[in-house]
């Protein structure tokens, strides 16, 4: 089994560590890899996590990717959008999200690229980023680590705040983990500098440096830990039996 481990599976396993030791909070993984990763966290090291069915209900077991028979969902509670807002204003949540841009401060952008008044590319809008980042911990997954995603200078439209404004958040702001297609990072370098924690197979420190638009410190250039046999079984047989994860990197 282990010689055919995919990059998506490595990223899922690494991302699931975002929720390690987080206790009984709402875990929100937005997008393919973060969602499977949150489910993996709940099935392995943090069974206390709360999680939704992707819509309005809290469920006891993470829902698998793809079409399913929802009559088997064990609903245990209610989580309308209004309730999500109330929850996040109180800080009992950890989301993993995929911004279009991130900068050296950890500021993130999902709103617009280019001149704000007539954007080159209009994206979603800031959505919940300002509230999420100032109220609770977040982690980041970026599938295409490049100078366009890890950008030099400030992101074009600051949607999620960064470390230089940490004191505005009453102690709540933290980007716990950054997982990309190249490696695993956090912002715990000196002065909250982005730092490399591990490299995915076949990736060099030089690849990371060349594709990051700002200074990245190298805490470790070890190989990212491979998913365990248990994790692989959960990913392949429980969380994503249809293999939808493989579309993210075209594997």
């Amino acid at each position, binding site marked *: 089994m282990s010689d055919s481990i995919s990059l998506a599976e490595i990223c899922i396993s690494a991302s699931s560590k975002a929720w390690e030791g987080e206790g009984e909070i709402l875990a929100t993984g937005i997008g393919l890899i973060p969602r499977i990763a949150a489910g993996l966290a709940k099935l392995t090291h943090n069974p206390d996590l709360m999680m939704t*069915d*992707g*819509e*309005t*209900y809290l469920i006891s077991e993470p829902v698998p990717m793809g*079409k*399913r028979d*929802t009559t088997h969902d064990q609903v245990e509670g*209610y989580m*309308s*959008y*209004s309730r999500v*807002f109330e929850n*996040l*204003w109180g800080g009992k949540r950890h989301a993993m999200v995929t911004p279009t841009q991130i900068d050296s401060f950890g500021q993130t952008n999902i*709103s*617009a690229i280019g001149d*704000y*008044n*007539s*954007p*080159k*590319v*209009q*994206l*979603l*809008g*800031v*959505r*919940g*980023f*300002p*509230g999420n*980042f*100032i*109220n609770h911990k977040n982690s980041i997954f970026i599938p295409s680590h490049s100078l366009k995603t890890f950008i030099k200078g400030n992101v074009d*439209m*600051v*949607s*999620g*705040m*960064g470390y230089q*404004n940490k004191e*505005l*958040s*009453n102690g709540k702001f933290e980007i716990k983990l950054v997982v990309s297609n190249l490696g695993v990072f956090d912002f715990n370098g000196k002065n909250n500098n982005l730092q490399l924690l591990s490299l995915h197979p076949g990736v060099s420190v030089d690849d990371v440096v060349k594709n990051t638009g700002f200074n990245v410190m190298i805490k470790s250039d070890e190989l990212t830990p491979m998913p365990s046999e248990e994790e692989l079984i959960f990913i392949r047989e429980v969380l994503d039996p249809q293999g939808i994860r493989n579309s993210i990197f075209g594997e």
Partner: protein
Amino acid sequence: MNKIVSYKDVVDQLSDGMIIGIGGWGARRKPMSLIREICQSDLKDLTVVSYGGPDVGLLCAHKKIKKLIFGFVSLDMIPLEAHFRLARQNNEIDVMELDEGMVQWGLRAAAMNLPFLPTRVGLGTDVLTSNPELKLTKSPYADAEELVAMPALNLDVALLHVNKSDEKGNTQIIGPDPFFDELFARAAKKTFISSEEVVSTSELGGKDGAIFNRFERSLVTGVLHSPCGAHPTSCAPNYGFDLNHLKEYSDAAKSFDDYRSKYLNKTHEEYVDTVGGSEAIQKIPLPQF
């Protein structure tokens, strides 16, 4: 008491430059039949407040919006809204871009008849720099913390789509998530409802039905009977969103005339027939995420 109105009655009560709040969320439970009616009217220069989906896009495509107050515009399964993107990229509309929770807070302030509600949300972001009208306020207590004073989003009119209503405006949203429709109704001077079904009060289900009554009838000015009125957005539990239609609509951003002549400038009944009929719409499965 009878608040039943026609499409024309609703549009007749709207005027140029009004601030209009639209209920629903993204591609879910949008009052689309009323939006199409506005698109084919002479109304212009509207300020729109919305958790945006094809309501915003369609109004953009018809050049009805002067200013958009929003947290996002998305078709859910199709993340980016093509018509809204065009309007923004061509600098056709003014925007007040807010966090989703700030929109809620602004509506809540209006609903509570307050000038603002304080929040940390927005601090440290370009929501503040791109909206210089947003002011800070200082906590009067020992912490003296600087917070955003999110101004009330007072609406002239709210437009909402619901599952059921009686003639008096006793409405029911039966889908599991009522979104922020209640706050839109409370923030508005007048609220017009389009409803899948109009039934007698005795058919509302008594105590069991009353839990779906998300705001009181005194907030409702007019009730429009509009079966399938949310199409192409979803109206749980009645029907899901019409992904094929949303794709066609989305692709129409390249040249809108074909879409317009096919689906607009029709009565709602004609529109429903054009998109396949009410039976077909009722069979569209609810989306799974």
